């Protein structure tokens, strides 16, 4: 048994994949943890952003690293608008209504994405990111490395923002006790809007780094939703560091599962894990009364 080939390479691949998974999940975790809203449209946003990113890089020929920024910025604005028009209106609605509304949003985004880009599978032309670094027997894809690093950096930056700044404390405080937050003068509505927009922006970011490591098509975005939820539930809400670690764990599990089982069964391992996680982590999310707008 070749140690490097059978153990270290898959481990490395898993960690790199996991960094991306963390980046994919964080938007969902943020909105769920702070606003108590399940953003079912998360992966629809993610894929839409990925396709937009693909359009800029592949068709317009622009630089892959630079183009992340405008894509994320566009979706931040989209998130602000969506919150004002839809989410705020539904702030006192039941969980049921929220789920329906976000499902509707998911269908809308998915449909528009298919209308613009059809159901063809897209692969991002990597250009200079397509290199492979060789360390002894190890192969490290530059694109996967860059994507993972971006994911890790963003998660750590978010963690620092939430724990070291006053606004970050305000966001966390708002999630923990909305009444007191209102009492001390925090504009909960406005802050919620920024958090929601950030969550959407993170979803878009997730789309760009996913595009770097995978081919994708708009019809299969729902599959990523399960992955994202798995990471979110595994890592628990309230800490982007734990989300990152959860992402890494899922990535490594998938990597090793992929070695031992045919590809389709990897899905099942992860779904089983999701079911187990749901059973074990009995996280009561609370309902309308606890939801931040």
């Amino acid at each position: 048994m070749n140690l490097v080939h059978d153990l270290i390479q898959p481990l490395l691949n898993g960690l790199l994949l996991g960094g991306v998974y963390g980046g994919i999940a964080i938007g969902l975790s943020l909105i769920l943890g702070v606003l108590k809203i399940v953003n079912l449209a998360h992966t629809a946003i993610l894929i839409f952003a990925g396709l937009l990113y693909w359009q800029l890089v592949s068709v317009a020929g622009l630089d892959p690293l630079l183009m992340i920024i405008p894509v994320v910025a566009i979706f931040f604005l989209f998130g602000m608008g969506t919150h004002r028009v839809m989410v705020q209106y539904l702030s006192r609605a039941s969980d049921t209504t929220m789920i329906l509304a976000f499902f509707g949003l998911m269908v809308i985004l998915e449909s528009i994405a298919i209308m613009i880009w059809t159901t063809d599978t897209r692969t991002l032309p990597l250009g200079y990111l397509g290199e492979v670094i060789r360390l002894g027997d190890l192969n490290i894809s530059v694109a996967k490395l860059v994507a993972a690093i971006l994911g890790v950096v963003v998660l750590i930056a978010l963690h620092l923002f939430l724990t070291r700044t006053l606004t970050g404390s305000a966001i966390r405080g708002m999630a923990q006790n909305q009444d007191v937050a209102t009492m001390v003068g925090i504009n909960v509505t406005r802050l919620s809007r920024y958090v929601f927009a950030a969550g959407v922006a993170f979803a878009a970011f997730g789309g760009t780094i996913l595009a770097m490591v995978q081919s994708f098509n708009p019809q299969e975005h729902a599959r990523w939703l399960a992955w994202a939820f798995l990471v979110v539930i595994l890592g628990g809400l309230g800490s982007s560091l734990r989300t990152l670690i959860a992402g890494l764990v899922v990535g490594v599990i998938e990597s090793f599962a992929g070695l031992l089982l045919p590809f389709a069964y990897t899905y099942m391992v992860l779904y089983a894990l999701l079911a187990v996680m749901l059973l074990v982590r009995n996280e009561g999310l609370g309902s309308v009364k606890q939801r931040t707008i």
Partner: protein
Amino acid sequence: MSAATIETTTAPVLRLENVTAGYFANDIVLEDINMRVEPGKVTSVLGPNGSGKSTSLRVMAGFLKPRTGRVMLGDEDISALNPAERLAKGVAMLPQGRSVFPELTVEDNLRLGAWQLRKDKQAMQEAIDRMVERYPVLTKFMNRAAGSLSGGQARILEFARTLILSPSVLLIDEPSVGLSPLLVDEVYDEMDRLKQEGRTILLVDQNVQAAVGLADHVYTLAYGKNHLDGSRDGFEGQLDGLIKQWLSL
């Protein structure tokens, strides 16, 4: 040195004028309530469960808008202002039960209490220092999560947070609930200290004896309406009768 004495003459009168309010569309919790909070005095609001005491406090603080009637601060109608805006005008509330951010540190809790000073880092730091000076025990658990504090410690933090912006009016909602008798004494000692400093306080409490003992003026509510109202001296004789009445409801 903290502002130990509040200018009683400049603190405006906070009052409810003919307020009717409720939580649900057809629900009436308060009906035509009139209430004044005199500057520099302690006003206690008493009554049996469900009489609307806490609700009247919430209307004053801005958590519930009156359906009819208005909330006045001096000559200004503040009925339409939300809690944050009222805080900016000097109306601070200490709510019932635990009101800390449980997973944030004590220091972060204080900093958020001074959120309205966030644009001026120095002013914020001075406000925090003032509170630490007033409650030196805070230094012992500045970096602990507020949720891990004992009942008494959390109460101190809550007082500090409520006072940090030097509000002119304090609305205190059921401070005795959930605390041991020893801690209730400590809470009342602290409120007495505030009273000696000349602060304006509106107090709602089930602990009738203590609330009346601290008060300068007393209101009682029954079924959401004004019932009795008078100075503390007039009440001390009637207490036993009132308590018996309320317990049997």
